[in-house]
């Protein structure tokens, strides 16, 4: 979309960016004062309550992709498209009991990488870290790009400047406040996102009623209302498994499980799933209004902001602008913090400098956040590809980690060899499907192949894992006091 077609003026866009940018940085720095040590910075003191825990899980999962791709799914795949996006919430529901178990098995754990290393050994750990890093960067880049594109479309701010400012704001407040800043700002961002979506939806419905939308779709685009739509149904299951893979493996969610108060984790993730489920429908249905309202949509990625801007005018564009900014910030900050934790804890501390002090690791973590911000910015600058490609290319990779994570948490017989083979075979099959069949099959096939490999490997395994081996702090204490290592039960693989 050109600057001339923007609903807001660039100066309005800059004012909104400045107001919310300063607000997030100020709040982040204020809450960040509580982050006095490494554990405070990385895990917000491990005592986050239900309100902030629920809000941070929900807000992190509401990305700019939710706000922009849900209307696109509706525009292209109708009702099933919106529902397909909503199934991503199932990942949060299913992670709820897992979060509780993670909290119990690993009371002093830091990252999802810690779990894979202790549970399956180093080869599987290395593959897992690569998958996790590729996915996290794909997510970060897709959001950085989305931010620049939406800001340009809504206000005419040049893509490069808008994208750069959003990344800069997120890097600064995450850098100063760590997870305290991330979780605190997530709460306010949750409220803004929910209010904005309800306001836009209500105003759109006040301008055109559902009978008119339905009647127009029946006459002009009946496929969008079709009960049986094979591609949409495939995408529904694909999206669901992609969501499982994203949530189960990524340190964004594990770090929240570690950060929440012990009795809160399962409730917070369950509630977050409930709160998230209606959002793709509430935000997405305006995509169905494009045809009935006679709005020409040159770029499907932009259908949401386009309809909101046309129907609501400047005020609607301001609301969409703010909602998108909050959606972006709530996810980018979480990804910066969680990926930095993974690189600091798993790569730097565990693989390179095991004897680093807490203060040193705190500094390393800060530098990693800055480095991630710069890398994301550099990858966003060329503005390559379409949003859904960036996002879904990582789908088969993360879907291959679903069963290794689930098996590792619940099956004593699950072993490192099976987990490694499951991730490799699932990723290879899923990527092949992505390029030969289509994105809407990739995660599904990856998860299926990974399930077969993991299932066969576990069924034929003689391993009998001792869960206490996951409590690394107890293991380290035992080593320091000279207790026999075998008493903690070394991992059997």
């Amino acid at each position, binding site marked *: 979309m050109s600057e001339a077609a923007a609903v807001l003026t660039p100066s309005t866009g800059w004012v909104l960016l400045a107001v919310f940018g300063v607000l997030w940085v100020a709040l982040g720095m204020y809450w960040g004062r509580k982050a006095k040590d490494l554990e405070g910075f990385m895990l917000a003191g491990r005592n986050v309550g239900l309100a*902030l825990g629920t809000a941070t899980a929900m807000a992190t999962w509401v990305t700019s992709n939710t706000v922009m791709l849900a209307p696109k799914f509706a525009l292209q795949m109708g009702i099933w498209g919106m529902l397909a996006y909503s199934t991503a919430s199932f990942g949060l529901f299913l992670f709820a009991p897992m979060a509780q178990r993670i909290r119990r098995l690993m009371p002093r754990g830091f990252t999802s990488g810690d779990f894979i290393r202790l549970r399956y050994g180093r080869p599987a750990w290395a593959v897992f870290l690569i998958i996790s890093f590729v996915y996290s960067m794909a997510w970060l880049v897709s959001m950085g790009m989305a931010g620049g594109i939406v800001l340009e479309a809504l206000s005419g701010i040049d893509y490069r400047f808008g994208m750069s400012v959003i990344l800069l704001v997120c890097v600064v407040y995450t850098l100063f406040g760590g997870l305290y800043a991330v979780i605190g700002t997530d709460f306010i961002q949750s409220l803004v996102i*929910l209010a904005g979506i309800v306001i836009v939806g209500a105003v759109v419905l006040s301008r055109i009623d559902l009978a008119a939308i339905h009647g127009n779709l029946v006459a002009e685009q009946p496929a969008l209302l079709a009960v*049986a739509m094979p591609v949409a149904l495939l995408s529904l299951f694909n999206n669901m498994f992609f969501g499982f893979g994203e949530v189960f493996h990524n340190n964004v969610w594990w770090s929240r499980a570690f950060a929440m108060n012990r009795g809160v984790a399962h409730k917070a993730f369950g509630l977050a799933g409930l709160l998230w489920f209606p959002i793709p429908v509430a935000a997405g249905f305006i995509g169905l209004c494009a045809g009935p309202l006679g709005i020409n949509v040159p770029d499907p990625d932009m259908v949401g902001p386009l309809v909101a801007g046309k129907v609501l005018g400047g005020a609607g564009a301001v609301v969409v602008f703010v909602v998108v900014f909050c959606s972006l910030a709530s996810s980018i900050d979480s990804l910066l913090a969680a990926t930095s934790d993974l690189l600091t804890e798993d790569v730097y501390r565990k693989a390179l400098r095991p004897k680093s002090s807490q203060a040193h690791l705190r500094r390393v973590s800060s530098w990693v956040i800055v480095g991630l911000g710069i890398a994301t910015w550099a990858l966003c600058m060329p503005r390559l590809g379409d949003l859904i490609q960036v996002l879904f290319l990582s789908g088969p990779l993360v879907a291959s980690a679903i069963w290794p994570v689930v098996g590792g948490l619940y099956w004593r017989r699950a072993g490192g060899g099976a987990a490694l083979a499951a991730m490799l075979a699932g990723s290879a099959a899923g990527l092949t499907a992505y390029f030969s069949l289509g994105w809407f099959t990739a995660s599904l096939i990856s998860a299926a192949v990974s399930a077969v490999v993991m299932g066969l490997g576990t069924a034929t395994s003689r391993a009998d894992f001792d869960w206490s081996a996951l409590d690394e702090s107890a293991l380290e204490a035992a080593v320091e006091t000279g207790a026999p290592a075998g008493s903690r039960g070394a991992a059997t693989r």
Partner: protein
Amino acid sequence: MTALFPQGFLAVLVYGALTASGAGGVLLLLLLARDLKNRRIW
């Protein structure tokens, strides 16, 4: 002829989603008030 979702289904879906989203915001505020009262924010 392909079966189509009726208008009522679309209405339930859309109005339900908007109502649930609004209720979600209220729920978060109530939870925050409870956590503030019990000093269990973080």
